[in-house]
């Protein structure tokens, strides 16, 4: 059995209530203190830190709002990779594997777990590099399947329902004004013409008062 690995992150990084000033500057209410130890399902702690550093460059925390670190994107990715998706249970993986035209998409043998493991390894001690070096390094691998996968996963982790591990405190949805899976806009569709309708977002679990069985929790 694999050794239990944890990612230790400051509690302030994980969500919280996001507010905007009148000038549109984001700030978070009630920053908690302390640290949270998140048990990892797939990554080692070193890999998680490495992946987190990449995600933070793709979707940074800056003046325009919080980013991948605050949303817990790396936790989302860890869970996806640990589940059946990471093991390619939803991809056609029979051979022969051939070199074909780009119109046929990714044709490689490696599943997402292998793509990450190899991709992270190829970056060396990425998390320890100075910021400018990190950006340069990512620019040099922009076109790779690995980088494109991390980019896609970062967007998913920012904006998927928080039950999947990312979008902590619904900060992704707050930033773009998505209300979550609301049951009805039957009245609102008429009432909010010409002005943004921005109710406080709610997650599926908050709306339904129960949580569905998630694909990433299925046996892989």
């Amino acid at each position, binding site marked *: 059995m694999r050794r239990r690995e944890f990612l230790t992150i400051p509690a302030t990084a994980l969500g919280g209530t996001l507010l905007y000033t009148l000038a549109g500057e984001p700030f978070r209410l009630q920053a908690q203190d302390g640290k949270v130890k998140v048990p990892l399902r797939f990554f080692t702690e070193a890999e998680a830190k490495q992946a987190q550093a990449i995600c933070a460059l793709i979707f940074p925390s800056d003046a325009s709002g919080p980013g991948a670190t605050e949303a817990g994107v790396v936790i989302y990715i860890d869970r996806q990779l640990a589940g059946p998706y990471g093991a390619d249970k939803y991809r056609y993986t029979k051979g022969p594997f051939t070199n074909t035209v780009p119109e046929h998409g990714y044709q490689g043998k490696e599943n997402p777990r292998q793509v990450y493991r190899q991709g992270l390894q190829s970056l060396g001690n990425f998390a320890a590099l100075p910021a400018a070096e990190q950006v340069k390094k990512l620019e040099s691998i922009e076109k790779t399947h690995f980088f494109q996968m991390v980019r896609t996963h970062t967007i998913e982790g920012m904006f998927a329902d928080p039950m999947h591990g990312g979008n902590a405190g619904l900060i992704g949805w707050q930033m773009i004004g998505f209300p979550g899976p609301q049951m009805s806009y039957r009245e609102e569709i008429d009432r909010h013409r010409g002005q943004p309708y921005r109710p406080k977002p709610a997650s599926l679990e908050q709306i339904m008062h129960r949580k*569905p069985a998630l694909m990433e929790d299925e046996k892989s």
Partner: protein
Amino acid sequence: MTNLKPVDVAIIGGGWSGLAMAKEITTRSGLNVVVLERGMPRKTSDYALGMDELDYAHRLRMMQNIADETITHRHSVRDVAAPVRQYGSFLPGTGVGGAGEHWNGAAFRFMPEMFTLRSHMNRKHGAAKLPADLDVQDWGVTYDELEPYYWYSEQMMGVSGKAGNLRGKILPGGNPFEAPRQNEYPTPPLKNSQAMDLFEAAAKRLGHHPYTSPAANLSQTYTNPDGVTRPACAYCGFCERFGCMVGAKSQPSNTLLPVLQRQKNFELRTGSWVRKIVHKDGRATGVQYVGANGEEFFQPAGLVVLASFTLNNVRLLALSKIGTQYDPSTRKGTLGRYLTHQVDSATRVFMDKPLNLFMGSGALAMRLPDFDGDRGLKPEEGLLRFGMLFMLAPGSRPIANFAALPQGAAPKNWGPEWKKAALQWADRVITIGLAGEHLSYRGNFMDLDPTYTDKFGDPLLRFTLNWTEHEHKQRDFAAKLAVPLGRAMGGKTDEYRNPRANYNVINYQTTHVQGGTSMGASPDMSVVNRYSQHWNMSNLFVIGASTFPQNPSHNPTLTVLAHTYFAADALIKRYLKNPGKLA
């Protein structure tokens, strides 16, 4: 293999066409019917907890698991096909209701000329002037013959819309160019979104005739002729790739299944993967399938109805060795011929205010019928046929729509500038799309792949398919119309570039894949007759969009249903009394 007790009718596939056929047969005859569905059972109460973009729209929870079976694709017979390893350009559904559960609900009738397209084009252009590789055909059935069956389908679903042509009278609010309807729509049109209002006003200013699409998403509470009552759409924006959590979007599970479940002569077997239609001396004798626990069965049947998705309809006939495979070099054979998809394009319009685009309904859209078919096309466009422009309001979800940016808004597609621009443009991007006709060509077809197999070791279906210059020109013309529309809406559009790219299996286009078991007036040119009955095997019916000899611009579902009911009528009224060839 276990031999089961014979049944009167075995239906392969529990989607719209299979369950519609089952309902007609079980309620109008004493025959017992078994429907064999590969996927799982489904019901409305499953769907509220399914409002999860990640698992449903991206991990494709309602689709066939591509790990079990896929297709292969090549651009021409000179290339070697590669498997589609992850879904992209279309999404085959599975489970009870099939793609009818996760569809958007667009419920169009085709234009009359679609059913006689070869004759229409010969008349219009002269047969000698049409390209030699054009393969479109007449269907052997006319719009007027199908009209009552369209109406029957619309009533079953409660389609919302406004007639533009009621018994020849042109009415405001509908499509003035549509084929004459004998009845007004069962329910009024859905509410327009504010982006649709902008599009409508702009299109009218430019002299077009925009109208709100007919939708199988109810605009008000409706009780259909079978006594099934469903509520109005809530505009929650979770239609395409999702099941409807209130049952407002017509799905087999909320329209046909409630009736079928009361029928003692109906049985639905889920988890049942049909591998072969068994036949002897020109007659189908039953089907061979693998059950949910892996056990193999032979189900003898007096009549077999093949009603799965286009891909599997074609593949199952090929695996069962029924009919003759089409060969593009000799143009002999009919199975696999007339493969079409749909011609799409997207012109993005960037608006300066947020539009609450998350509100919507799957089929909610404005359509522009002014250039549908060959209406309004000038010779300089170089087009034989075009299609409809549209602006959808299906409810925009955050993962799929994040970072739709104007050209040049950020130096790269990640990092701080990208993030800032993406946040700035969130909820401000509208797409004007094209639902373009895809004509059938000699070189686009389906057959069995020589190399790749499914989870049971059966050969996969192979597509040989590419775009031609005609489709590139359709996209050019779409942009020529859409760019001024976007500007008239007060938005900015991208600079238009058409890379004249090859067909790709990566980007979603539509799930409208047609052909392969096409319908026609003669067995030399088609697989089934006008009643969807196989020319060579009178106790085998093949229903679905696999019978379409070309793709019309309009979404196929309503026509699939009309054909199913047309076939069911002939089957029940004539075939059962006197089994044999119906045409």
